[in-house]
C-alpha cells in the first residue's frame, strides 16, 4: 500500500503535521485490555454499582428495588425491543442521507413520527431530539421564531428542575429572558401565570403531570396563553398518555417529552429520547430531522429526509436548530415498544403505575414524619414531605436495598421557593414492575418493625406445585 502511495512509511504521509506540534511521546493512557480482561474489569466495576452487601440488606443477591422517579422510570422493556435495536443493520447505519440505502431506518422513523403524533394528537412530529430537557428548550426557540417575540419565555416552577436549568443555559445569551412562575403548592396558580404572560412572551412551558407528579390545570393554562398570543408548550410523559388527555386535546401548541419510558434502559441518564410534536403550522420551523413519505422515480411509496433546508447542513447559521446526530436508535426502540404495547398495553402500564404509586404513597405515609407534600391529585409519582429532611429516610431505605428519590435537595436550592422547604421533599414512583410485596417490605424496613419478613429473592416469588 505504501508503494501505491509512493511513501516509504506512514511517517511520510504525516509530514503535513508540523513537527513542532507533533506529540513526541506515547499518550499516557492505561494499558490495553483484551476482550476477556475488559469484560472482567467492567464486570468488577458494574458490581460496585450494585451494592448488596449492607448488613441489613435482605434481598439475598437480587437487584436493588427502584422507586425512583423524577422523569426517568423503571418500566419493563420487552426482549423484542432489544432484539430489534440490536440488529447491526439498524445500529451501525448512519443518518439516512442516502434514501435508497436507508429505507429501513427511514420507514422506522416515519413510523416513530406517526406514533408520536398518535400519542400527542398532533400531525407533525420530528424524528427525535436529545432528551426531554433540550426538547423543551427547542420548543421555546421555535416559539420565539414563530411569534418573533424576544421578550420572555415563561416556565412554570413545577417543570422538571433540570429542564428549567437547560432552558436557562441555552437561552442565556439570546435576547429572551426565562421567567419562572413559582409553584409552592404543587399545582400552579393560573392567575399567577396569567400575570406573567406579557405581550412579548413567546412561550409558556407547562409540565403536565408536573414534576411533583401532580396534574396542572393545563386546559386553563393553555387557554390563558392563547388569549395572549403565547405559544403553549406541554412537557408530557408518554406513559401517562395511556390514561390522560393528549396535549393537543388540552390545547397545547407544542408537545415535548422524555421518551425514556418507552423501552429505553435507564443507563445512568442517557441516551434517552427527546419527543417533539407540534401543530401543523409550525412545520417549517421545527427543529431536527423530519422523515417524509414520498414517491420514488418508479412511483413506489418511500421515505426520505424531508425539509432539509431547515437544517444546519444546508441553512447553516439560519437553521431551525444546530442538531445533527439525533437519537435515532432510541426512536427505533420507542417505536418497537409502542408497537408491542398497543393502546391497551400502554393503558395498562399507566394504570398499574397509578395504582402502585398510590399504594406506595399510602404505605410510606404510615412512617412517622412522612406525609404527602401536596393535597392534589397525583398520577404516577408522588411528592412526600419528611419532617426534618429526607436524608435519613432515604438512607434507611437504601441500606435495605430500596432506592427512593430524587430528593429535591439534589437540585440547586434556588430552583424552588424557600417556603416549599424543598429540603424536606422527596419524589417516589412505583411502576408496573413493582409488586405489593416490595412496597410492603419497604414500608416494613422504614417502620423498624423487627417482625418484618425479609424478601429473599433467592426464593422463587412465584413458586408452583
Amino acid at each position, binding site marked *: 500500500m505504501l508503494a501505491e502511495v509512493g511513501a516509504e512509511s506512514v511517517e511520510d504521509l504525516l509530514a503535513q503535521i508540523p513537527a513542532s506540534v507533533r506529540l513526541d511521546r506515547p499518550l499516557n493512557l492505561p494499558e490495553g485490555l483484551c476482550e476477556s480482561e475488559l*469484560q472482567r474489569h467492567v464486570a*468488577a*466495576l458494574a458490581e*460496585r454499582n450494585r451494592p448488596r452487601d449492607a448488613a441489613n440488606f435482605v434481598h439475598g443477591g437480587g437487584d436493588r428495588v427502584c422507586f425512583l422517579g423524577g422523569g426517568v422510570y423503571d418500566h*419493563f422493556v420487552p426482549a423484542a425491543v432489544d432484539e430489534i435495536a440490536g440488529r447491526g443493520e439498524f445500529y451501525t447505519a448512519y443518518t439516512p442521507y442516502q434514501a435508497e440505502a436507508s429505507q429501513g*431506518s427511514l420507514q422506522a422513523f416515519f*413510523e416513530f413520527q406517526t406514533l408520536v403524533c398518535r400519542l400527542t394528537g398532533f400531525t407533525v412530529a420530528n424524528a427525535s431530539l436529545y432528551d426531554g430537557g433540550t426538547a423543551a428548550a427547542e420548543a421555546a426557540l421555535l416559539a420565539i421564531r414563530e411569534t418573533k417575540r424576544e421578550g420572555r419565555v415563561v416556565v412554570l416552577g413545577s417543570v422538571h428542575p433540570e429542564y428549567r436549568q437547560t432552558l436557562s443555559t441555552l437561552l442565556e445569551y439570546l435576547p429572551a429572558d426565562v421567567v419562572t412562575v413559582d409553584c409552592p403548592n404543587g399545582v400552579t396558580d393560573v392567575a399567577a401565570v396569567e400575570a406573567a404572560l406579557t405581550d412579548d412572551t413567546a412561550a409558556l412551558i407547562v409540565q403536565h403531570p408536573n414534576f411533583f407528579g401532580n396534574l396542572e390545570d393545563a386546559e386553563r393554562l393553555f387557554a390563558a396563553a392563547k388569549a395572549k398570543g403565547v405559544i403553549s408548550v406541554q412537557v408530557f410523559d408518554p406513559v401517562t398518555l395511556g390514561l390522560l388527555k393528549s396535549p393537543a386535546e388540552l390545547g397545547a401548541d407544542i408537545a415535548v417529552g422524555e421518551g425514556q419510558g418507552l423501552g429505553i434502559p435507564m443507563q445512568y441518564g442517557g441516551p434517552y429520547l427527546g419527543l417533539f410534536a407540534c401543530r401543523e403550522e409550525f412545520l417549517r420551523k421545527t427543529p431536527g430531522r423530519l422523515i417524509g413519505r414520498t414517491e420514488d422515480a418508479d412511483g413506489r411509496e418511500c421515505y426520505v429526509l424531508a425539509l432539509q433546508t431547515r437544517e444546519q447542513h444546508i441553512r447553516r447559521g439560519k437553521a431551525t436548530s444546530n442538531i445533527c446526530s439525533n437519537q435515532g436508535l432510541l426512536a427505533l426502540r420507542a417505536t418497537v415498544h*409502542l408497537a408491542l*404495547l398497543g393502546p391497551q398495553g400502554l393503558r395498562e402500564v399507566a394504570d398499574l403505575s397509578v395504582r402502585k404509586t398510590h399504594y406506595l404513597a399510602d404505605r410510606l405515609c404510615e412512617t412517622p414524619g412522612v406525609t404527602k407534600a401536596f393535597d392534589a391529585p397525583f398520577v404516577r409519582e408522588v411528592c412526600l414531605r419528611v419532617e426534618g429532611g429526607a436524608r435519613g429516610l432515604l438512607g434507611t431505605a437504601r441500606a435495605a436495598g430500596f432506592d427512593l428519590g430524587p430528593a429535591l435537595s439534589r437540585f440547586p436550592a434556588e430552583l424552588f421557593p424557600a417556603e416549599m422547604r424543598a429540603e424536606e421533599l422527596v419524589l417516589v414512583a412505583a411502576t408496573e414492575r413493582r409488586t405489593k410485596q416490595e412496597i410492603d417490605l419497604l414500608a416494613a424496613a422504614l417502620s423498624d418493625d423487627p417482625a418484618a419478613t425479609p424478601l429473599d429473592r433467592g426464593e422463587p416469588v412465584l413458586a408452583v406445585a
Partner: protein
Amino acid sequence: LAIRPLTEMSRPGYRAARFPTPDVPDHAPADVLPAGALAAAPPELPELTEPDVIRHFTNLSTLNMSVDTHFYPLGSCTMKYNPKRHERLAGLPGIGDPHPYRDEADLQGMLQILHELQGMLAEISGLPAVSLQPAAGAQGELTALLTAAAYFRDRGEGEQRRKVIFPSSAHGTNPASAALAGFDTVQLKPTKTGLTDLDELASKVGEDTAVFMITNPNTLGLFEKDIEAITALLHDHGALVYIDGANMNAILGLTRPGDFGGDMMHYNVHKTFTGPHGGGGPGAGPIAVRDFLGPYLPGPVVKKVGGTPERPEFALHTPSKSIGRVRSHFGNVGILLRGYFYLRTLAAAGMRDVSERAVLNANYLRSKLKDVLEIPHPAPCMHEFVASASRSKKNRQISAMDVAKRLLDYGVHAPTVYFPLDVPEALMIEPTETESKATLDQFADIVRDILTKEDAETVKTAPHTTPVRRPDEVKAARQPVLCGVAKGCGTVPVDEVTVSA
C-alpha cells in the same frame, strides 16, 4: 418490495405485550384522578402481535446499508467498525440499568469509568478540563461556545466579542451553533489550497472576535499546516480557538489540539471512539478545554474526592462558574461507555495505530482513484479526501450524485456528496482504519468501472437494485407527509386473533 406500514397491519384485538394484574388495594385511575383529565380512550396505537412486530422490523432492517453489512465510506462520518464487545458490556446489570438519581455512593463503579474517561479525553486532546455532558458533537460545539461566552462575560468582554469566525468548509453545525449561542457568524472565503488563508483570517480577526472555529484536519482531509500561526493570531487578539473534533480520528497520539493552540474542542465519541451511529444517533459530544475555561463547564463532572489508590472515591461536582446544564442528567452515558471500552482496549499504541492506518487507507484509496476522479488538493491527505466528479459531469453529464447512487448497486454505500461546499461535484471519501486493502481495491475498481466503462445512462438512472430509486424530494418538501394515516377502525372477528406467546 415495500413493507406495509405498522399502522396498516393493525387489527383490533391483537396485542403483544401483557402486564400483571394489579396486586395492590384498589386505586383505580378513575377513582384517584379527576374525570376531566382522563382521555376517553387510549391513543390510537397499532394493535399487533409480537410476531408481527418482529417480522416487520427485522425485514425493515434489511433495507438498510450499514457498517455490519457494507463498506460505508461516508466522508466526515467515520463509519468504522463497532466492536461487538461494547454492546455486550454496555448492557451489563449495574452498567446499563442504573437510574440517574441513584445515590452516588452506590455508583462508584460508574463514576470511576466516567472519571477515567474524562482523564483519557484530557490526555488525548491536551486540554485538561473535560465535560462529558453534551449529547452530540453539535451540542458540544454549542456548549463550548456558551462556555466561551461566559468566560468573556466574566472578563467584561461579553458585549465586545460578538463574532465567531469559521472557514467556508466548516460543518454546518459550526455557524448554527454560533448563532444559537448568540454570536454573529463570519465565514472565510474558500481557498485554492483548501487550507485557511492566514492573511484573510487576519483581516477578519479583531478585538470583536470571540472564537475561531476550525476543524483540523479540516473537512477536506488536510492538516492545517499553519495551525500554530492561526492560533497565535487569535490569541494575540484575545480570542479563543475552537477545534471541531469531527476529524480527531486522524491525529490520535500524533498531535493534540491543546498542543497546536486549541483552547476548546469537542469529541464525537460515536465517530472517533466507535459508538455505533444508530441510524442517526445517539452520539456523545464531550468537550475538553483549557484550565482557565474549566470553571465555566456545564455540570456535573466527576471528581475524585478521596478513598485509597486501590479504591478511590468519586462524586459529582458542578464547576464553580458553570454555565449550567445543557441537558438533563449526566450525559449520553451509553455512548460514553462505548468510548471508554474502546480506549481501554486500544490504549496508547492502538490510538496511534488507528490514526496511522486511517491515513494510510485514505491515501491508498486516493492514489487508486486519482486518475479517474479529480482531486483538487495535493497529496498526502489525512484520514479522508475530497474528490470531484466535475470532469465526468462536464463530459458525460454524470454527477457526483449519479456516482453515489450507482455505487449502491454494487453494495457499497455512497461517499458524502456535495460537501464541503467549496468543491464542485464533491465526493468526500473516508475509508476508516477498519477496512481491509481488499475492500479498498474492490471499491476503487467499482468507481473506475462506473466512470470509465459504464454506459452513462445506466449511471444517471441508478440505482437499479435498491428497494427504491431516487425518491422525489421536491414532493416531500412541497406536500410534506410526516405521519401515517389513522388506522382503519374495522372490527375483526374474534376467531382471527392470533395466539402469541
